[in-house]
Every structure is written in structure tokens, then in C-alpha cells.
């Protein structure tokens, strides 16, 4: 009954306020930036192929009620480590990417298990905890890549190593893998390069998620996400289900990172993953997702809107203020801002729900009481 009443324009706008805001921002900034449409389109399509898979990895933990998985960074690290090894072994092209993907699976499962079991000890605080797991593991990643690779883990090529003889350089070149996925089956329409194979892989991942929702595990995750206690009473192994959701997310994220980095062609060894979680989450939220609800639609809408904003902001900022730094800071501000707003709305909603429930009961009694006294 409630849902029917809500189906008017006002609530539709308020429910989608974030995407609408971004549409407006983009609509204002695109003409201001003066960027040619072709360039813009090309950039957006490139970024769509590059980022979507990573963002898809966020959907499963949201389904399991664990909020925005800042721990996806762990998957990104697994993907990076796999790529470093593959680059060292000189496996090139698509075979190299496939090998990196296979290598990243055990790594990311391991990291996912770690992350998931910590999060099971911090129920109700998953987001802030996963946020710090990402930071913590960044230290471990540095320990491995900066100190153990080349000393304990054999690295053959000195081009990868720091001059001191161990540790990986600040940039890892993936020259021989660069866009090998994107260029396979690529189609160019009006100068806009469409990375067909990448998009097919993304489509498969979407299909998987749609299908996954219909599996027993998917159903269990939704149940756990909505009410852990009821799910436990019904015999669902809550902790295990949550653990699996994080492991899946981490594995997905490592695949996503490999796709992302093959497009870039090289990566800064120690920084590539630091903010990736933040930007993926911001993009998802821009697409209209919330902490407890996200769909594939949100992912695509989010990637397009967020990245359009990202591309045009510096140019537009430069045109307005004569300083392109303004635009760069602006887009960083928007990324943080949108996450802040989404978190505030989520928490406020949780509290409001409790309150309205009380208010409603009070009113009912009042009405009844008035009826009786009258």
C-alpha cells in the first residue's frame, strides 16, 4: 500500500536525487568545458570498459548487508601482484592477462577470507572496519612488494626491480599487455573505439550477478543482509554466507583490477590501489545506489555520470576560474561529498524508520482513545 502511494514525481525525484544532481552538474559543465563530443564519448566509453567490472564487485557484499566494501582494495592488490609476476615472467598479451587472472584467484581468495573473517567480528561496523583493513593490508602489500619481491620471491628482470636489487620499482610497465583485451574485437564507430571483448566480459559478469541472485546462495545472502537473526534461526550459516560474499567480492575486484590495468598499460606500484575503492564506491553511489541497495543499473549509470563529471571538471573549472586545479579539486570534493551524503542519508533513514514507527503507533492509540472518550 505504501509503495503505491510513493509512486509520484516528488518521491521519484527524492529517491534519485543524487543521479539527478549529477546529471545537472554534467549538463552544466559539458558545454562549459568546450570538449569535443567525440573526445568525450571516447573517454566515457574507455572508462566504462575500464572501471565497470571493478564496480560490479561491490554489489555482492551490499546484497549480503555488509555495506560498501572498502575492502575491495584487497582484490585490487591481488590483481596487481599477479600482474607483477606475469610481467616478470614475460607472458604477454591475452595469455598474460589470463594467467594473471588465474594467479590472482588464490591470492584474492586468501585476502577475502582474511577480510571476511575480520568483518564477521565487527558486525554492524563493517564499513569502517573494511576501510581500515584496506589500509592495514596496504602495509602488508608494501612489505611484500617492496621488500620481499626480489629477495624472497624471485624477480628475474632488473627492469622491474629497484636499483638496490630488491623491491619493485615505482612503476610497473605492462607495455606488452596494454589494451590487449580492449583491442581484441575492438570496433571503431565515428572515431569512438568500442572495446567489444571487454564489454562482453562485463556483460557476462552482469549476467552472472543476475543469475546469482536467483541461486540458493544469493537468496541466503539477501536473507542474511536483511535480518541476520532470522536467517540464523532458519538454519542459514550467517557467518559463512557473509564470508563467501566478501571472498566473491575480492575475487571479482582482482579481475576488475586486471581489466583496469591492462587498459592503463602501466601502473604505479604503490598507489594504484590506494584510492580505487573510494572512487568505485563514489561512482556506484552517483548511480543512485545506497548502502543497503544497489543494482546493475546503478553501476552503469554511476560509471557514466561520475566519469563524465571527472573528465569535464578540470576543463570546466579552468574556463570558469582560469585555474584548472579548481576543477580537479572540485571532482575530488564531489567524490567525497557524494559518499558522505549517501552515508548520512542511510544512517538518517535507519533512525527515521524507527521514529515513524513509534509515531504511527502513538497516533493509532490516540485515535482509538479519542473514539472511546467521545
Amino acid at each position, binding site marked *: *500500500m505504501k509503495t503505491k502511494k510513493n509512486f509520484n514525481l516528488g518521491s521519484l525525484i527524492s529517491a534519485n536525487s543524487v543521479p539527478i544532481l549529477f546529471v545537472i552538474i554534467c549538463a552544466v559543465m559539458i558545454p562549459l568545458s568546450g570538449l569535443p563530443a567525440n573526445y568525450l564519448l571516447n573517454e566515457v566509453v574507455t572508462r566504462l570498459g575500464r572501471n565497470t567490472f571493478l564496480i560490479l564487485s561491490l554489489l555482492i557484499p551490499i546484497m549480503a548487508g555488509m555495506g560498501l566494501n572498502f575492502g575491495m582494495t584487497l582484490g585490487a592488490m591481488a590483481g596487481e601482484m599477479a600482474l607483477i609476476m606475469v610481467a616478470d615472467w614475460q607472458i604477454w598479451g591475452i595469455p598474460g592477462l589470463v594467467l594473471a587472472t588465474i594467479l590472482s584467484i588464490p591470492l584474492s581468495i586468501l585476502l577475502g577470507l582474511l577480510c571476511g573473517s575480520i568483518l564477521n567480528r565487527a558486525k554492524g561496523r563493517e564499513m569502517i572496519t573494511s576501510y581500515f583493513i584496506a589500509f592495514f593490508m596496504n602495509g602488508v602489500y608494501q612489505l611484500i612488494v617492496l621488500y620481499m619481491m626480489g629477495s624472497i620471491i624471485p624477480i628475474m628482470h632488473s627492469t622491474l626491480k629497484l636499483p638496490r636489487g630488491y623491491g619493485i620499482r615505482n612503476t610497473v610497465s605492462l607495455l606488452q599487455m596494454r589494451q590487449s583485451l580492449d583491442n581484441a574485437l575492438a570496433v571503431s564507430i565515428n572515431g569512438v573505439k568500442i572495446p567489444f571483448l571487454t564489454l562482453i566480459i562485463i556483460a557476462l559478469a552482469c549476467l552472472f550477478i543476475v543469475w546469482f541472485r536467483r*541461486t*540458493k546462495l544469493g*537468496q541466503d545472502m539477501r*536473507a542474511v543482509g*536483511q535480518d541476520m537473526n532470522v536467517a540464523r*534461526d532458519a538454519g542459514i550459516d550467517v557467518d559463512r554466507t557473509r564470508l563467501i560474499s566478501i571472498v566473491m567480492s575480492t575475487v571479482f575486484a582482482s579481475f576488475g583490477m586486471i581489466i583496469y590495468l591492462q587498459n592503463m598499460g602501466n601502473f604505479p606500484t604503490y598507489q594504484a590501489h590506494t584510492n580505487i575503492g573510494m572512487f568505485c564506491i563514489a561512482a556506484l553511489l552517483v548511480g543512485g545506489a545506497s548502502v543497503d541497495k544497489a543494482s546493475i543499473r546503478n553501476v552503469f549509470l554511476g560509471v557514466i555520470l561520475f566519469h563524465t563529471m571527472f573528465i569535464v571538471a578540470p576543463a570546466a573549472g579552468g574556463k570558469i576560474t582560469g585555474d584548472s586545479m579548481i576543477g580537479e579539486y572540485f571532482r575530488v570534493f564531489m567524490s567525497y561529498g557524494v559518499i558522505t551524503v549517501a552515508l548520512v542519508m542511510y544512517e538518517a533513514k535507519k533512525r527515521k524508520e524507527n521514529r515513524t514507527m513509534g509515531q504511527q503507533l502513538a497516533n493509532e492509540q*490516540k485515535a*482509538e482513545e479519542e473514539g472511546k*472518550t467521545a
Partner: protein
Amino acid sequence: MEKNNTPLLELRNIQKDFFGNQVLTDINFTLEAGQVLGLVGENGAGKSTLMKILFGMDVIRETGGYKGDVLLNGEKMQFNTPFDALKAGIGMVHQEFSLIPGFTATENILLNREPIKKSVFSEVFGERMDTLNYKEMDRRAEESIKKMGVDIDSKMVVSDMPVGHKQFTEIARELSKENLRLLILDEPTAVLTEREAQALLDSIRSMAAQGIAVIFITHRLQEILSVCDKVIIMRDGYVVKDVPAKETDVREITRAMVGREVKEGGNAAREVRDHSDARTIMSIRKLWVDMPGEIVRNVNLDIKEGEILGIGGLAGQGKLGIPNGVMGLYDAGGTVEFDGKAIDLNNPRKCLDAQLAFVSEDRRSVGLLLDESLEWNVAFPAMQIQNKFLKKIGFFTWRDEKAIANVTNQYIDELKIKCTGSAQKARELSGGNQQKVCLAKAFALEPRFLFVSEPTRGIDVGAKALVLEALRKFNRESGVTVVMISSELEELRMICDRIAIVSGGKIAGILPADHSSEEFGMLMVSQVK
């Protein structure tokens, strides 16, 4: 499978104690397939403990198991978890809903028992990767809804459902379990409207007709009489009566529920003072309180100066809502006058300023600062409300640690609080001693009027007597009006001058404490919602 003449369920000499506190003694009864058994008794009579044993709840095992035998079809059963009980064909609908809010009725009915279709992935990743068979789910859900005999929309999402439908969804879930032989319903009609309740009673009948045995727990005695084959009445952990429903009536059941053989002279020896001439110190009009599970509706109550008023009633009927509402801890409306002046509701500060004090029933989360010292616990409200235990040095007003320690030690002696010293943390004390700290906190406020809510809940017998004595002394010596809320009628009768009984969120009646238990019992069940 079923042997003739063996009852479906038989309990033999069931005994259970919680840490030496005997809650069930020698429970024996039988139940045939297709029979409906009504189980009644006051709160704390042992009904829910018995059901927990039957349903294999963890808490029983964790507290040392039980004695005696549970026989199902003549076979001795030992349930270690609810899932064992489910396997054996026992289903239970708890008082609190156990439903996933965003799922449809169908999804909830088949929660974690969904029919599945094999998928390729499951070969590798385990059977949880099988997909759900939605068609089969719909079919089974419809089937169990039909079995129940009440029509609910299987596609409706639970959060959109009226309360009654949620209840029916829960029952349908139990019915969808194919081997269901015994269904336990714990106060299922409490949340239903009259029509829904009637529908439920009909469906109980039709379930019984299909050979399912039902244990039906309720406080609505009329329902018991109309639907049950036999009635079992429990009191203080004993089965006091086990009769066919046809051979009894509401009055007899009530008497059995609350009646006690007067064997100890304790009651008679004490004085019940009449305060009807005293002036009214607090007058409550049209009070409603939205306290979840203890809703109060339209309560009018006058409290006389200097008396001890008891408020009794069954759990969930609203007796706890009255003090919590007046003291501003839960949303409330109506008017409350104290000493001729109106008191703001929903503002604890105003009540405390008017020299009212409240000892909450929720010791651990409202009553105490568990992680702080006893000193803090005792002195805190008095410091904050009345600026006691403060001293001025220079520009600052400091806590007067010495005064705080003194007052705490005074109450430690007076109330015989067992602790290592006034600096001990409240968390480290036993329940009874924590309760005494709560009392000390209220006494330190030197109130003119004291609400005490369930002061003896969960504490041992010795501490109970001490707490009650302290309350009586406080009332008699300082002339403070005390309103005590308790689920234990006998306790109220021991200490109070008058007792008001709350039923269905309203005051069902007020009687002097020396009236018989039976009369109070009748009031308790009079308007049960």
C-alpha cells in the same frame, strides 16, 4: 510407523533448574495426534521453559540440560538444537516474528528450505549454487497456505503486510514442513484483531483435523475453551491442572492459575494500611505510552500520598509502560499531575526535578553505568539533578569525591551491598547487588515519590527479601509514596497496600492487597489483548 495407543507426545517427569533455581518440577502430560492442547499459566509459571525444552533451544543445553524424558511416538528424544526438533516434526511459532522484511510471503515460508534446480556451477562450487525453483516454491507456499485455511497473498512483501498476515505467514511456514506433527503456538493471537484471531482459531481446528497436534499458549482463556481439547494449567513450575476443556470454565482456570494454598502465615501477619483518606499525590489521566511490547492505552490512575501501590498484570499487557511513560523514557501522551502541578511528559529531567525517582526494570542498559564505579552509579543523578556532591574550588565546580564515597559507603552498609569497595565497577556485581545499587541511586535522590519497576526480576531469593524490605522501610520511615511494578502477584501482595492490575494496556481494577489471589487473577485475564 505410528503404534496404536502410544500418544504422539509424552512428557515424563520433566525437571529443570537454572543455577539451582527450580523452574520446572515433575511435568507429566500426553498429547494425541490431532489434539489441541491449551497451555496456560502466569508469567514465570514455566510455560516458556517447557516449550524451550520441547524445541531444543540452546539456552537449555547451555544451562545444564534438563531431567526427565520427552517421548515422541513412544520414542525417547533428545534435541540438542531447534533443528533436531524440526527434523522430528515439531514446529514452533514464537511470539516475536521471525520473518525477513524484504521477502515475500512465499520466500519467507520456504526460507532456507527452498526447492532448487540443479545448475552446472553447483558441481564445482557446492550445492548452494543451485538456482531456486520459483514455480515449485509458489506451489508449496500456496499448498501450505491452503492447509492453514486462511487466505494470504503469497506475493506480498512482509514489510507491507498487516500484523495478522505476518503471523499467518509464520504459521504457514511451519505447515510447509512436510513432516510436521506437532505445532507450538506461543500467544499467536496477542497481535491479531478479533476477526483474525477467529480465523486463526478456525485454522487451528482444521490443522487438528488433518492430524497435527497443536500446543496453544495464550492468556485469552475464552479461546482456550473454544478451540482446545484439553487444558493444562501451570503454576510455579508444576502442572496444577490437566483437564478436558469441556469440563472446566474460565473461573476454574483462573483460580488454578493464580491460586495458592495459604500455608504460610506471612501474608496475614503484615499490615495493609488504608490510605483512602490521604490526599492524591499523583493523578494520571488518559495516559498512553508507546513502549514496544508494553503499550499503555488510556490509563487513569490516582495514587495516594504515602501508600505503596502495586501494579501487576501479565507480561506484555502494559504495566511496565506506565512508569516508563510517566518518567519520560518512552513516547507518551495524556496528563500527569504531581502534587497539584502538571508534569511534562517525554522529559525525564522535569520528572526528576519534581522529585520523582524511577528504578528501571532494565538494570543493565538503563539502570546502571556498568563500566563505572559504584560511586558514580549512586551519586550521578543526585549530582546532576540536585547539585549534590559538588564543591567549588577556584573557577571550577568539582565533583566532591569524598562526599560521593561517603554516601556510597553509607548505602553499601544500609542495603548490605556485597562488593570489594565503593570503587568497584558495577558490572562486576551480582544481579541482586546491582539491583540494590539501583535502589541506592534512587534513594540518594531523596525523592518524594518512587517508581520501582520489577525490582526482584532475575535475583536470588535472599536478595529479593532484602530489596523488598528496603523498599518497605523506605516507604514507612520516610513516608515516600512508592509505586511498585511486578509480574509476581504474591510479591505485590506481600508488600503493597493496594494493587492495580493492568490488562490490555488499561487498568482492569484496583483492589486492596489483602483480597484473594483469585480476584486479582480474574482481573489479569479480563481484557487481555
